């Protein structure tokens, strides 16, 4: 009914939405001046944005299979780019990335390169071909290209493992932000977060998730960029920080030399009672660590993140929603454009926030000052009370040294506006942005898992005769079950045991990258090869992870391949096994060969029908 019109009106609708959001920010700023408390502003920001997402989710409800799974394949290029960017940038990207650069400097920035460059693999190797294929889910491609339920099922297993590793961290982040903004306990915050997430996806599946993700992207990018530009202008660092912080980066190098980069001994840190997860700066900001091993560590992390990006199903499935193959390709480019807006800003935020703390010439500087004076600063008191920051006077001289100031990475994004003396309305905005980032990624991930289970396992394997109503009912029920499982695990606060977000990339690349790529690019790849590749890739990667991870077996890493990089092992094994087994088995039949020929050209019908 309003769909055709809706697509044509998108720029107008989202333009109005953006304008409305800016008006809301201004209203909040006025309310703050009029004496509204910080707490109320925080609640209003989060509640207002979540209600809008829920409204969009409700408006996008559907009973059509192709609308539910692939948004009716009608999402225009630029908007799909925005939705993918929101899908991609998680609570971790939004809240933790600047903090990672703050502590890790150049070394950490391998993540920036890895999490952006992967899109070139997506665009040139996969997205247009998967779009031409016309699949609903990633296992749908594997199952049809290689044939047989076993191949499909293996792909579902890899997808579920990778996405689930990722999703608990996202629900955890929504819980943290909801708890802080609404002043409720974390355990309750997790469930509030989950309900908000499900409101966006349950009624309309992919269609609803698409349109809420666009709305969430707009909120998160405003919330990220506004404070950076504000701080940079207020502090006189330059009106366009990205081009003008060269001097500040150089100044950080001087300050590092002046204060000295000391790595605290683990025993000292423990003895001083530093709360877990807090760190001090011990790595240089812009200096490249010397030696071939350091370069290899950088590059190997880039490999894992890039190849992992190209194997993560919640990203690949976004390109199933475009109207054409050409649009899928362009849409990848737009996705990276929108992602780059945030990623290129994170180092600038880290630079500004580091400088404002480290430079003794600035009024905000705390390093090199008297500890008693530092302890009387409002924000220092607030964050130390919440165990987000800590001071340990190791040398007992009463002066705060660089290695004596401990902080949690998240604080960089969450508190920089406050430290720089911006009005509270900005902190409220940042909370809404973090919530948007975490929710949008969680939605994409939960939907990817639920769709694979409902379409590939339930409909394709268990009950191929199920009618549309039943299929969508199962899909929605699974959405709730998976979300609840994620929230339950998040509320147990054991996410630190589940490991880093990076693991999701390693799991995905171990099992899926080569079966997907060779499925398009190598006609000789056979079912047996793909199945053997997926199983051995995932198994060897996981085994290596258990072998090196300090909390499991803790063996020394081989060639610097530690637990963040285990995908290199998994994907290599997967490639070798898949090629060898494929060559040992008879080549795929002529109908499969013809299917691959069809996938390689943009024109003509999709391989799988519009409704399947």
């Amino acid at each position, binding site marked *: 009914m309003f769909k055709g019109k809706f697509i044509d009106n998108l720029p107008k609708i989202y333009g109005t939405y953006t304008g409305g959001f800016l008006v809301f920010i201004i209203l909040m700023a006025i309310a703050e001046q009029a004496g509204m408390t910080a707490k109320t502003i925080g609640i209003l920001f989060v509640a207002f944005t979540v209600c809008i997402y829920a409204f969009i989710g409700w408006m996008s409800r559907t009973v059509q299979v192709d609308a539910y799974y692939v948004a009716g394949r009608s999402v*225009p290029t630029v908007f799909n780019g925005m939705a993918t960017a929101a899908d991609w940038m998680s609570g971790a990207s939004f809240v933790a990335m600047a903090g990672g650069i703050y502590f890790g400097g150049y070394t950490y920035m*391998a993540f920036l390169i890895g999490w952006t*460059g992967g899109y070139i693999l997506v665009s040139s190797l996969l997205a247009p071909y998967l779009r031409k294929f016309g699949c609903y889910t990633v296992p749908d491609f594997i199952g049809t290209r290689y044939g047989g339920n076993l191949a499909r099922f293996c792909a579902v297993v890899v997808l579920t493992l990778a996405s689930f590793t990722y999703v608990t961290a996202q629900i955890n982040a929504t819980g943290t932000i909801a708890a802080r903004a609404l002043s409720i306990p974390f355990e309750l915050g997790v469930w509030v977060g989950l309900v908000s997430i499900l409101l966006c996806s349950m009624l309309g599946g992919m269609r609803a998730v698409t349109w809420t993700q666009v709305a969430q992207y707009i909120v998160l990018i405003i919330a990220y960029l506004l404070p950076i530009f504000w701080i940079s202008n207020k502090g006189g660092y330059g009106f366009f920080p990205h081009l003008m912080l060269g001097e500040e980066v150089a100044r950080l190098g001087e300050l590092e030399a002046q204060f000295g980069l000391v790595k605290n001994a683990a025993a000292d840190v423990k003895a001083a009672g530093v709360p877990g997860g807090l760190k001090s700066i011990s790595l240089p900001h*812009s200096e490249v660590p010397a030696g071939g091993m350091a370069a290899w560590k950088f590059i190997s992390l880039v490999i894992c993140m890039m190849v992992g990006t190209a194997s993560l199903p919640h990203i690949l499935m976004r390109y199933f929603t475009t109207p054409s193959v050409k649009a899928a390709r362009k849409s990848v480019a737009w996705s990276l454009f929108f992602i780059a807006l945030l990623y*290129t800003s994170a*180092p600038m935020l880290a630079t500004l926030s580091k400088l404002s703390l480290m430079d003794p010439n600035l009024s905000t500087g705390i390093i090199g000052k008297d500890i008693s004076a530092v302890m009387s600063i409002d924000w220092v008191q607030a964050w130390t009370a919440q165990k987000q920051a800590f001071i340990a006077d190791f040398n007992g001289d009463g002066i705060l040294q660089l290695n004596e100031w401990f902080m949690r990475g998240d604080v960089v994004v969450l508190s920089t506006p406050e430290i720089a003396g911006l009005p509270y309305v900005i902190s409220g905005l940042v909370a809404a942005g973090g919530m948007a980032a975490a929710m949008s990624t969680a939605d994409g991930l939960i939907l990817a898992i639920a769709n694979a289970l409902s379409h590939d396992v339930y409909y394709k394997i268990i009950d191929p005769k199920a009618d549309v109503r039943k299929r969508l009912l199962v899909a929605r029920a699974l959405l709730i079950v998976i979300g609840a499982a994620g929230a339950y695990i998040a509320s147990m606060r054991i996410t630190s045991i589940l490991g880093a977000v990076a693991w999701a990339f390693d799991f995905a690349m171990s099992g899926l990258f080569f079966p997907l790529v060779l499925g398009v690019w190598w006609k000789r790849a056979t079912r047996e090869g793909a199945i053997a590749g997926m199983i051995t890739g995932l198994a060897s990667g996981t085994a290596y992870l258990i072998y090196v991870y300090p909390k499991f077996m803790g063996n020394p890493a081989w060639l610097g391949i530690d637990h963040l990089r285990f995908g290199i092992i998994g994907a290599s094994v997967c490639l070798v096994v898949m090629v060898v087994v494929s060559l040992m088995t008879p080549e795929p039949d002529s109908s499969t060969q013809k299917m691959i020929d069809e996938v*390689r050209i*943009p024109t003509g019908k999709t391989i799988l029908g519009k409704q399947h």
Partner: protein
Amino acid sequence: MSNKEKHWEKTKGNMLLTLALWFFFGYIIFMFGESLNSASFLGYPLAYYMCAQGSIIAFVIILFWSANRQEKIDEECGFAERGEDD
């Protein structure tokens, strides 16, 4: 059929060229990060700059450039999609 083969050859060529550029901006330059950092751009040490912005901007440009190039290849071989434009 030969048209299809020609199209696939050209598509492969575009893919390899794209990945070569990707490899340069994603890997090669960071193999020399240490020496690169003694040069500077906009006042930033060069390797730091490439990490923070340079390579990311290069990736975006490569993606648009490569997509346009592929569209031309599709057009040339008569496989360009009609009607369902964005």
